[in-house]
């Protein structure tokens, strides 16, 4: 089984977000970056499918700056076979642009399955994997929490409001991965050592203009300072009163 996994370098979920002097970018000083948590599910699933098939290859592909090499090494340390960095010099505002660039790389190589995360925790568009599929003309299922692959097709379960949707598709296909799919492994020391020697190809790509321009990045609007209404059950009437007359939600 030949599997590609799209992976992204993102700020750690605990990271303090400071806005750069230009007012539109993230100040990366002191920010810890990690492999996007949903992409960990995707890498883990790819490794499991490869190992269950007893043969094949897992290729991780990341679109990003040079710093994404480190993210690719993390996935290689988990057990992926090789990596590709599609090197760009700036962040991409439009997921359709990102998806198109990834699709162009993934079109030729004859992948049975392309996996991505459900969303990247930085821009959280929940879109790139699905866009890759549409650009390739492949079937896709998004936000999958349970996956079975057999006899050239897949059955996937995705959580929807109030239930679970069951979707089937023939391979080759694209699946974006949700929490619940598996428990991602931690890279072992042996894996980290081996990763250093695994192939990592770097290809420069040009970012087309795209149809969205980032014009501002700001902290979220301050919530008006809240009030502690009191201690224990005796504060309940004050809460009910506030919810009725101030917040008007009761």
């Amino acid at each position, binding site marked *: 089984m030949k599997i590609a996994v799209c992976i992204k370098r993102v700020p750690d*979920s*605990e*990271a303090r977000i400071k*806005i750069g002097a230009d007012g539109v970018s993230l100040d990366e000083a002191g920010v810890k970056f990690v492999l996007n*948590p949903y992409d960990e599910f995707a890498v883990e699933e790819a490794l499991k499918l490869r190992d269950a098939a007893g043969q094949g290859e897992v290729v991780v592909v990341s679109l990003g700056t040079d710093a994404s090499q480190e993210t690719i090494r993390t996935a290689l340390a988990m057990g992926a076979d090789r990596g590709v960095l599609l090197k760009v010099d700036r962040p991409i505002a439009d*997921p*359709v642009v990102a*998806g198109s660039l990834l699709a162009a790389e993934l079109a030729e190589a004859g992948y049975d399955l392309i996996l991505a995360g459900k969303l990247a*925790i930085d821009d*959280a*568009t*929940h*879109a790139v994997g*699905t*866009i890759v599929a*549409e650009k390739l003309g492949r079937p*896709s299922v998004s*936000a999958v*929490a349970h996956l079975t692959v057999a006899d050239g097709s897949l059955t996937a*379960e995705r*959580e*929807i*409001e*109030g*239930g*679970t949707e*069951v*979707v*089937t*598709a023939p391979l080759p296909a694209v699946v974006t991965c949700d*929490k*619940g799919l598996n428990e991602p492994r931690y890279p072992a020391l042996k894996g980290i050592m081996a990763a250093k020697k695994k192939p990592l190809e770097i290809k420069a790509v040009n970012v087309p203009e*795209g*149809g*969205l*321009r*980032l*014009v*501002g*990045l*700001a*902290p*979220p*609007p301050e*919530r008006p300072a*809240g*009030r*502690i209404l*009191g*201690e*224990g*059950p005796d*504060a*309940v009437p004050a*809460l*009910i009163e*506030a919810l009725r007359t101030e*917040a008007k*939600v*009761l």
Partner: protein
Amino acid sequence: MTTILAVCEQRGGTIKRVALETVTAARTLADAMGAEVHALVIGRAGIATEALAAHGADKVLVASGDDFHLYQPGAWTSIAVQAAAGCRAVLVAATAMGRDLGPRIAARLDAPLAADVTALEVDAGVIQVTRPVYAGKAHARLAVTADRVVVTLRPNNFTPRERAKAGAVSAMALPAITSHGERTVEIKASARATLDVAEAPVVVSGGRGFKEPAHFALLEALAEAFGGQAAVGASRAVVDAGWRPHSEQVGQTGKTVSPNLYIAVGISGAIQHLAGMRTARTIVAINKDKDAPIFKVADYGIVGDLFDIIPRLTEAVRHARST
């Protein structure tokens, strides 16, 4: 005339509340641009669509098919792309369906996608969107430079507003359908067939402060006191412990909720939890630790033992709603 397309979600033949939000947002955008709103409904024949005109649709397009009882990505995308001909913007709610459909429409139209948007504006004829990024720790503003854009709207951010328009209903001739082969075969309803956290106007969430799974009965009773308006949510700590299903998890690796009222009980307020609920309109925190970070985002707080407070609150809510 310029048009804005509102793709309106239905489930089981009933137009969802988020669809009214979508039409409302489309109407506001259209008014700012001198445009018309077309509302698109895809499903089995016989869906009642009056609410769409009442919320500002100039035209209602209905695409029906016998096997349209389940969301079929290929058919839905082909139909939406057809209906989007000549549109400046295509709007759809960022639900499980919309977050799958929006990217497909954008990819096929080769239009940019602005996802999970919380505000829309028109500035000198240019559409601008605001969307939370970095788990809500920043808000990005994006200007649309293309002549067409696909926008998914975060649920509960565009309050439905009635502005009656003609809303002439027409059946849409089905276009040729391009499906790449994915097929939705069934929906398994969840065991708790209640309101989903992502959609509920009121969310009451519980965390590790409940100590054991059985104690969540207290929280379920509080939700019930809101008379079908409230859903139970959970922190990741209690989901990972197996006390509550993942479908209830709120936060970065769970659901993003934006209810009118969010009550966090026995939840510390970790940054990853806040990521999923900080755009709620009113936030209430109940926690025995007065320094818990949740109080920093809460509008109202009560410090104390949840086991004493919740039964009293449940009673008070029930009483308040009945008077």
